[in-house]
């Protein structure tokens, strides 16, 4: 069962997306901010990370950069989630090393497609 780390500070979004993903056969773990997300990436070693960008003090891009700079977690694909579909957001996500980018509110079928695509190409899977 593929394990997904969801880094999201909004409780309802975390709960909702987590439960729906569980229902689609994923094992979920959660982080509520960027530092704990970075830490959990190292301890849980998930197959994929869903990273919210607007996370308060440290944003999702910075968290992604740090996860990618740690050899132990560098290979984990990360999908960025932002509220705005701005070209600059997408460019920045790619720049810091995200495998893909999606907008909130989450369109579940679309996100599932992206998750599966990432897992299919993720090394070590």
């Amino acid at each position, binding site marked *: 069962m593929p394990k997904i780390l969801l880094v999201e500070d909004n409780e*309802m979004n975390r709960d909702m997306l987590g439960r729906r993903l569980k229902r689609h056969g994923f094992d979920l773990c959660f982080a509520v901010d960027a530092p704990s997300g970075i830490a959990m990436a190292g301890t849980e070693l998930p197959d994929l990370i869903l990273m919210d960008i607007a996370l308060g003090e440290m944003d999702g891009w910075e968290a992604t950069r740090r996860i990618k700079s740690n050899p132990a977690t560098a290979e984990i694909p990360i999908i960025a989630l932002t509220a705005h579909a701005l070209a600059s957001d997408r460019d920045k996500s790619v720049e810091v090393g995200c495998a893909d980018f999606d907008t909130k509110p989450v369109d579940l079928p679309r996100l599932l497609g992206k998750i599966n695509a990432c897992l299919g190409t993720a090394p070590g899977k």
Partner: protein
Amino acid sequence: MRSRLRLSPEMIYPLLDWFIPPALKAERGTHQRARIFLVSHFFGPFLGHTITVYLYWLDPHPSYGLWVLASAITIYWAFPWLLKRTGAFTTLSLISVANLVFMILWGCYHYGGLSSPFVAWLVVVPLLAFLYLGPALIPRLMVLGMIAGGVGIFYLFYAAGHSFPEHVPLHALGGIGIVSTISAAVYVSMMALYYANIVANQSELEREVQNHRATAIKLREAKDEAENANLAKSEFLAKMSHELRTPLNAVIGYSEMLLEDAESEGGDTQAVEDLGKINISGKYLLSLITDVLDLSKIEAGKMELFNERFDLDRLIDDLTAAAQPLCTRNGNRLVVERGDGLGDAEGDITKLRQAALNLLSNAAKFTKDGEVTLSVAREATPGGDCLRIAVRDTGIGIARENLRKLFQNFSQAEAWLSNKYGGTGLGLALTQKLCRLMGGDVMVESELGQGSCFTIRLPASLARAVQRRELDWAAEPVQDGGAARRDIILVVDDDPAVLDLMQRVLVKEGFRPVLADDPGKAVALARAVKPSVIVLDVLMPGMNGWELLRAIKADAELDAVPVVMLTVVDDRRTGLALGAVEHLVKPVDRDVLMRVLDRVCPRGKADQPAEPTTSKPMVANA
């Protein structure tokens, strides 16, 4: 109000200005001094000759002294012509003053020596000289030198005991003393009155200009305030929309989850239906909020385009899939017409889809048991390919008088529509703004009760989209009946982009544009081409538009040609005070420009069969 019969110095201005070369008119002060010079040279000799005539009456067989005096006075009438011919205003002024000094001293020498009645005229010399010569120091010193030198030489003669000729006995000169003093007094008063009038007018003008400046500042402040308020509104809307979206996402997400649960359990159909309603209402609310957010983003200039290549057939499939359920709901048939060779296009497909879907959902909403047609075609135009996406329906239609406000925010054609059909009136406003952002536009044709047709036209490639956006209003469709016009419009602007833009618009409207990028040559060019209207930019290097406007208005051949000022700053009243018929602030709206041109050069005049010309514009380069 000024009575019609009142005499004022302005009445002789046309006569005076005929003698003044254009170069002297460019600067206001010089222009005024040249007018004083002319007034003095027209009327001065009449007063001077009262003395010669009187002398002739005293002594009917005068010596050469009188003839020389008479000639020196008469020669003044040649000065206006010399001014017109040479334009050498300062030189002529100095010669004129020198002649005056000579005349006075000559008169004194021959008629009475130091006690001559002519001495009074010396008072006139500096007054006139300084009126002619203005504030320049060297000419002033030259004049003072002339007077001092002349009087000095004269006194030397006197001191050396030279015997002065006595053509007329001194006691007989008493009468001439009175005549001479009265003439000098009249002359001085006349010049003083004239000068006082100018000063009065000038302070009036200055007050006027000051008022205009104050108004301009107030207007600018009001404009800034309004712009800031608008920005604040947009930011508020963006923030609010964001705050509203978060809880709404929860409503949609949880209702979707519950819906999935209820469906998989296959149980309570009523619950499934209710959850469906919550979900759909949530999504509808979200779409409205998204529209508000998008509108405010566009208004705040923060909307970004996400351009990519896309397949047009796929776009049509997407749109059909999304519109089909909307059409079916009202018993409408959805017809899709695909043009030949659609291929790929470049642009922001998400925003294009959003714009087109707005039109489709409107068509489906306002049509019942009818037909909604989506037709997509690629059109070749001189500037490159265009996409045409038309949505036609057989619905309720829109009354002609309502078409205009159709694209305004929060506006629906009729108030009752929102009660009956729902909706906020944001869709079309957003569609239009999106289309314009993408370098195109949306147009509407409609007949009440027959149906409507909305057409989006967009450039099919990005390079053109950018170009189109820059040229914005030049790219708008041609209005009816434009081609018949033949009026020449002279456009003076140093910015080649503006000239290019004006040329396109004017040619398209059937005018004949003549373009000048050098304001220095504009007057000569205007004389040569005799335009119906002159369009003037205010900010140009070298000569600014106001000066040029003044020069045009001071030119006898051109002063009747209407001038439209074009500026980036709103300084309308200055332009109008200087004689412009209209004042437009850049960037100029094409419709506004056409309305102004229609007004200042009516079509009737233009319909005369003009000499055969091509619509190719002439360009005068610097």
